[in-house]
């Protein structure tokens, strides 16, 4: 029973790390893109423009969020949103 619990926990952690990890905004971005795709679906011709546009916006915002924000030259970085993976 303990072994099953441990495997279940490890399985859950793997998927959490894989899907969310240190970039929850990209997980949310994917959900938004899928939702928009399903909403637009067969009804709008603009779908093929909307999906890449959304992906680009989310990607650039996420990269900007993950940039290293350092203090004075030569000092140790004060903030970086990513945890080592």
């Amino acid at each position, binding site marked *: 029973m303990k072994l099953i619990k441990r495997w279940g926990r490890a399985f859950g952690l793997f998927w959490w790390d*894989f899907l969310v990890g240190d970039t929850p905004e990209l997980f949310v971005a994917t959900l938004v893109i899928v939702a928009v*795709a399903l909403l637009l679906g067969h009804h709008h011709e603009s779908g*093929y423009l909307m*999906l890449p546009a959304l992906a680009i916006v989310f990607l650039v915002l*996420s990269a900007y969020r993950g940039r*290293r924000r350092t203090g004075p030259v030569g000092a140790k970085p004060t903030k970086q949103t990513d945890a080592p993976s």
Partner: protein
Amino acid sequence: MSTSSTVVLLLAVFGASTVEMVEALTIVVASGVTRGWRSALEGAAAALTVLTIVVLVVGVPLIRWVPINTLRVVVGSLLLVLGLSWLRKSILRASGHKALHDEDVIFATTTAELAAGQSGAKKGGRDAVGFAVAFKGVFLEGTEVVLIVVSLGASQHRLGIAAAAAGAAAIIVAAVGAIVAKQLSQVPENLIKTVVGIMLTSFGLFWVGEGSGVHWPGSDLAIIVLIGVFVVVTVIATSWLRTLRVPAAMSVGSGVEREQVEG
């Protein structure tokens, strides 16, 4: 499915597998050098066997029983999460906001850890620690490859081709690794990861759209256009983020950078 998208599929799987296998090989070599090659190779072989079984057990039923459009939306989403994440990391690395992945540091760290527990190891015989480390390294890195193989292969009904591309990458990396065991850091990992990130993101978007009923002009050729768009976005984003960098703290090989070696 057109030839162009099959070629892109092959390249994406091959590239992703190469990157992950280089990481896995680094760990296997470190384990082999410190704890003996027999256990390290057995651990790696056992992990590859388990991963192959996972591809067969998960991949084949996916193709047979899940409706194609549902499959495309689900695997497209997985590819999109993975692709955007790889691409983001690549942009941050190329622009100097994140440390480059360093195989030398991984090798040194793994050998140091394994050497610390050397007392129980028998050179030439079986060693549980060496086996476990090699197994874990190959299994964890290989799991990502399996996800890509199953996702890309299943969504295009090309599981065999995708698995063959991953297998070819594993064989080539292993062969090259056998010759240049300790020079794995020479592999331009960030470049490969950027290319694969662009491909996975493009495939992911395409399949999410395709499965949802979005009409892509040019059908499968839209994948090539998407790849071109993301190449341009990556170049522009990297150049822009480079201008936001604080120079001295980010010099290559500085202590600060070495602290943050990551996968």
